[in-house]
């Protein structure tokens, strides 16, 4: 293993987002605060039906997880996309880094960005809420697996896209709908039964619900079933990324 090379690539990918903090950290924090202001006044002190928690407390973990997922996706997808357009990707391909080393470095940087964004958001939102950590292991598990799944999907999207238009297509028609319909803003138990079933086919739903469970000690899914599904999704994503880097899919044709 070229661990030093892997570490260097990880630090390059992390420094890249730290170099543009306004865009990568401050902007998501501001967006989340605006969501909260809007929902705070729109929903008042309403409780979430069936879960018996204030809607406002219910919303915060979901928003944080959503920001983590979007940032993990953005870190890998934008890096690969800019790399392609600026032709910088060749330096990665010329370096003696194996597919698994590249996968590890990119995913680790995606996790780093997601965690930094989450910590900033939680610090900003803490004064406005009463939520506290109930199950730290759940919070960590869903943070890391969620970042890996979304970072991996970002990598695949970056490899697949030939233009920013392709990327926008994936983002607007797949990633954003799956994120919005994953139960960030509602409990699935509020949905009609058919939609509840449909929601269970959305992998993002388990990430949001599990992460929220770590804070509120209530959730819409069976924890062990959710952990199994998320673990399988994580391993599948990592495996897919590894194989795609190995074959040079859409990069070395």
């Amino acid at each position, binding site marked *: 293993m*070229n661990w*030093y090379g892997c570490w*260097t690539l990880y630090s*390059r990918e992390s420094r890249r987002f730290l170099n543009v903090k306004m865009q990568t950290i401050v902007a998501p924090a501001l967006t989340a605060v605006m969501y909260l202001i809007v929902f705070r006044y729109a929903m008042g002190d309403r409780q979430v039906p069936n879960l018996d928690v204030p809607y406002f407390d219910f919303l915060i973990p979901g928003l944080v997880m959503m920001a983590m997922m979007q940032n993990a996706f953005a870190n890998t997808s934008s890096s690969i996309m800019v790399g392609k357009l600026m032709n910088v990707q060749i*330096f990665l391909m*010329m*370096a003696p880094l*194996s597919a698994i080393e590249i996968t590890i470095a990119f995913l680790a940087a995606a996790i780093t960005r997601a965690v930094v964004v989450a910590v900033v958001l939680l610090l900003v939102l803490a004064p406005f809420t009463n939520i506290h950590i109930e199950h730290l292991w759940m919070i960590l598990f869903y943070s890391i697996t969620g970042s890996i799944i979304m970072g991996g999907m970002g990598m695949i999207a970056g490899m697949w896209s030939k233009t920013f238009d392709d990327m926008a297509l994936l983002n607007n028609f797949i990633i954003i709908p799956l994120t919005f319909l994953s139960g960030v803003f509602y409990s699935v138990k509020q949905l009609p039964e058919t939609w509840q079933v449909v929601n269970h086919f959305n992998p993002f739903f388990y990430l949001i619900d599990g992460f929220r469970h770590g804070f509120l000690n209530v959730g819409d899914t069976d924890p062990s079933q959710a952990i199994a599904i998320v673990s399988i999704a994580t391993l599948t994503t990592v495996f897919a990324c590894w194989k795609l880097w190995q074959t040079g899919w859409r990069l*070395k044709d």
Partner: protein
Amino acid sequence: MTTALTISQLTKTYKNGKKALQGVDLSVPEGSFFALLGPNGAGKSTLINILADTVKPSSGKVSFLGHDLFSERRWCKQRLGVVPQEIAFDPFFAPRDILKIMSGMFGVQPDLKWIEELLNRLELSEHAHKNARQLSGGMRRRLLVAQALVHKPKVVILDEPTAGVDVELRKRLWGFMRELNASGTTILLTTHYLEEAEELCDHVAIINQGKLLTSQSMKSLLDNVGSSSLVLEYADAKTISGDIKNKLADFCPRTQDNKVILSLKKCDGHSNFNDAYQAALACWGEAISVNIQDEDLEDVFLRLTHNGASA
């Protein structure tokens, strides 16, 4: 003689059906300064991109310093530096950081002394802290050269490294390349400046339409393939009748304004200059001036690539 690169039957057909390489065989001796020449679209960059691992080959084998390039990529990449043809730079970092990152990705702790020397030799020291976006085209190209050398490779491939670099700087860059070559680094170069290739390189290969036309030492190419011509200038334009054409068939006669040009050949180390001159005298009489024009690399290149035939 050991070889740095032995390429066997390398082919590449792109998805759109374009056959960029059609079974290229090529050997690059270790320690050589090797010119790879060919017109635009000949397949040079495809060949280089396959060596650099940015394009997958369709078939063929490459041995790199005795190791199989495709199955021992990591070993080979650690010893290979490539300067790509297209300018590429990371818009997030400054040159010094880019060099440290590049070195790290090769698994090498950045050798700060070497990085400073590279920046200095490539005249980038003053700009080392600026963002790469602020560099001029020539600076970005020099940065690419520095990136290719930062891990001290044994073999360096330069794909048109001097395009857009001014004459003075180009000369200094070549001086640096000569030093590297003298210290044992094998250099494979593609360039459109043929006089540069002639001056710098000790070996030359010419490819066209994905096929190798010739590969030999520069000296033997210029000695054996590069022929010379006898140029006779007359007061008026001469025509070459069918009769004269037959008489002078050995010399491929042709005219250009008031000049008659006859190709000379070498036989057992002697030129047939005298035969050609006597034959011209018999046909057209005394000329105003008589010159011998030696073919240089550019003439050989044009003749070979236009004929498309193997030399």
